[in-house]
């Protein structure tokens, strides 16, 4: 397979009239139909919606040749994670409890993407309610990694990552609560960005942990990620947690010039279960950045090593509260035969049959840490250490412009290898959860391969609302390396 077109290339071809949006859309749908049976990246294909959008663009351009000039994503096929609501299109969060749920409204980012000319070709498979690091918690079966189908694409946004890595769509949308965009991007050899908390509206995102969840783009290039985020970002009256900041205009940040920028490296964190080949690729990536004129700075993030336990106490507490809404009354699944029982039996059986094991495990853990007698010892304590982790990053950013770490401590592991040991699975997130706890923006970019040809990711974390800094470094790194051009067989 040759390197697929970027969103920028496709958009320019459609805007100039070199290609029709319908043709671009049909090609994406053909790739989806051909490749997805082996990948299982999609829960639902939205061919009619995408083609209707494409024909509308083509009609508008036929009527007026400049009609599409103002659309940054005109004719760009995009895959959207199945925990983002799409009006009239089944939205499941890969859970039995929402298997037949059809939202009566669009998520704000869906409205914004389509308003910018994007064509949504389908809803992507993910871990149930975005809870997982391997996609194996999907009620509909796992996604397969395009680089090695016996392996995980990562999670939870594994379907979106696999769709881009396989070249089905040039870009995709995911959500990231503890690494769910960055880790699958790393394991699938593409770019994935978690914006700052408050940057992107979450109206229409099926909530997992509300103080941590963010929506962000997958792409082949930093420039495409910037293009998407420019469309997605901004205040939304429907989400009171969005920041009232001007549009970031991130594409202008990609100058290629990173001379004088300081790259912070928390070397003491690298002892945390890091695969030797990942370490090697990470250190080589630092050399490349130094070669572009940056300075490497040692930083200490002394409390970051507590990020995993803090994250799993905070995230599960919030999840147990958010998932209380699935009660078999207003929408979603109700256990058969329980309408004639009593309310409590209906609730309990519906939730037992509707949720998978990982979701139940997290609801129980979260309920436990919030319950009387344990709240102070676990939940409050975790919130206090969360403050200390943020202080560590604030301190580091007085001496550095971005912090570099590997995205995942290991390359893609085999499907089935870790399903029986949830704690081991949680440790996959060791380098990613801090960005969610602190609300800071972070990006994963491809930085090499193992000898077995599995992709490796470099993670860059920036100060709050400074997506421009991490995108500038990511783009400069890309210009110096060819990893992002590699595609699976």
């Amino acid at each position, binding site marked *: 397979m040759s390197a697929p077109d970027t969103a920028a290339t496709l958009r320019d071809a459609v805007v100039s009239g070199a290609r029709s949006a319908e043709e671009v859309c049909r090609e994406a749908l053909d790739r989806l139909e051909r490749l997805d049976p082996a990948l299982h990246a999609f829960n639902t294909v939205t061919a009619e919606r995408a083609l209707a959008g494409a024909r509308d663009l083509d009609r508008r351009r036929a009527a007026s040749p400049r009609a599409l000039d103002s659309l940054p994503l005109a004719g760009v096929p995009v895959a959207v994670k199945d925990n983002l609501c799409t009006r009239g299109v089944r939205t499941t969060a890969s859970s039995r409890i929402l298997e037949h749920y059809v939202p009566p*409204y669009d998520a704000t980012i869906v409205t914004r993407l389509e308003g910018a000319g994007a064509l949504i070709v389908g809803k992507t498979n993910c871990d149930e309610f975005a809870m997982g690091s391997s996609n194996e918690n999907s009620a509909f079966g796992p996604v397969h990694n395009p680089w090695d189908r016996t392996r995980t694409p990562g999670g939870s946004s594994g379907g979106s990552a696999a769709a881009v890595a396989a070249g089905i769509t040039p870009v995709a949308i995911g959500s990231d609560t503890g690494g769910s965009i960055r880790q699958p991007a790393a394991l699938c050899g593409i770019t994935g960005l978690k914006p700052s908390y408050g940057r992107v509206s979450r109206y229409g995102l099926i909530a997992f942990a509300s103080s941590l969840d963010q929506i962000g783009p997958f792409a082949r290039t930093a420039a495409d990620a910037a293009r998407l985020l420019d469309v997605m970002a901004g205040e939304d009256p429907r989400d009171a947690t969005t920041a009232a900041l001007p549009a970031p205009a991130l594409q202008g940040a990609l100058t290629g010039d990173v001379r004088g920028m300081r790259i912070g490296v928390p070397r003491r964190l690298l002892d945390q279960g890091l695969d030797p080949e990942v370490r090697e690729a990470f250190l080589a990536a630092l050399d490349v950045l130094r070669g572009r004129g940056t300075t490497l700075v040692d930083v200490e993030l002394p409390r970051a090593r507590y990020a995993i336990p*803090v994250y799993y106490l905070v995230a599960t507490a919030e999840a147990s509260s958010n998932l209380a809404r699935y009660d078999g009354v*207003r929408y979603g699944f109700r256990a058969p035969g329980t309408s004639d029982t009593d309310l409590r039996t209906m609730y309990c059986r519906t939730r037992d049959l509707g949720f998978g094991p990982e979701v139940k495990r997290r609801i*129980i853990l979260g*309920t436990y840490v919030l319950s009387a007698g344990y709240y102070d010892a*676990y939940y409050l304590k975790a919130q206090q250490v969360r*403050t*200390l982790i943020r202080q560590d990053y604030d301190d580091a950013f007085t001496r550095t412009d971005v912090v570099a770490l590997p995205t995942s401590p290991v390359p893609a592991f085999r499907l089935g290898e870790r399903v029986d040991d949830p704690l081991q699975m949680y440790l996959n997130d060791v380098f990613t959860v801090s960005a969610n*706890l602190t609300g800071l923006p972070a990006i994963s970019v491809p930085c090499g391969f193992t000898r077995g040809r599995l992709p490796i990711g470099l993670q860059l974390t920036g100060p709050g609302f400074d997506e421009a800094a991490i995108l500038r470094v990511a783009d400069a790194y890309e210009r110096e390396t060819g990893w992002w051009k590699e595609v699976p067989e």
Partner: protein
Amino acid sequence: MAKVLTPADVARVAALAHLELTEEETAVFTRQLDAILAYADDVRQIDTTGVPPTSHVLPRQSRERADEVQPSLPPGEALANAPDPAPSAGLFKVPRVLG
């Protein structure tokens, strides 16, 4: 590491969360969650005297907006996903609550 979680704890918490677990699920979750809580024990040892908790990282607490009437969902659409709707009454039906 001493066990902090018993099957009775898991059953009690599951009941609070309206989850009906099988005995096997209770046994597996007890073992797995006990290991996770033991791992979290390090966090409990950190001195956090005087450290304020972070419940979110928003730069500001709240905001006001104009009090304007916005369109809302028609009742038919709001009921469309309900497992047991009563459309003519415009209601969601639940099993009996009182005996």
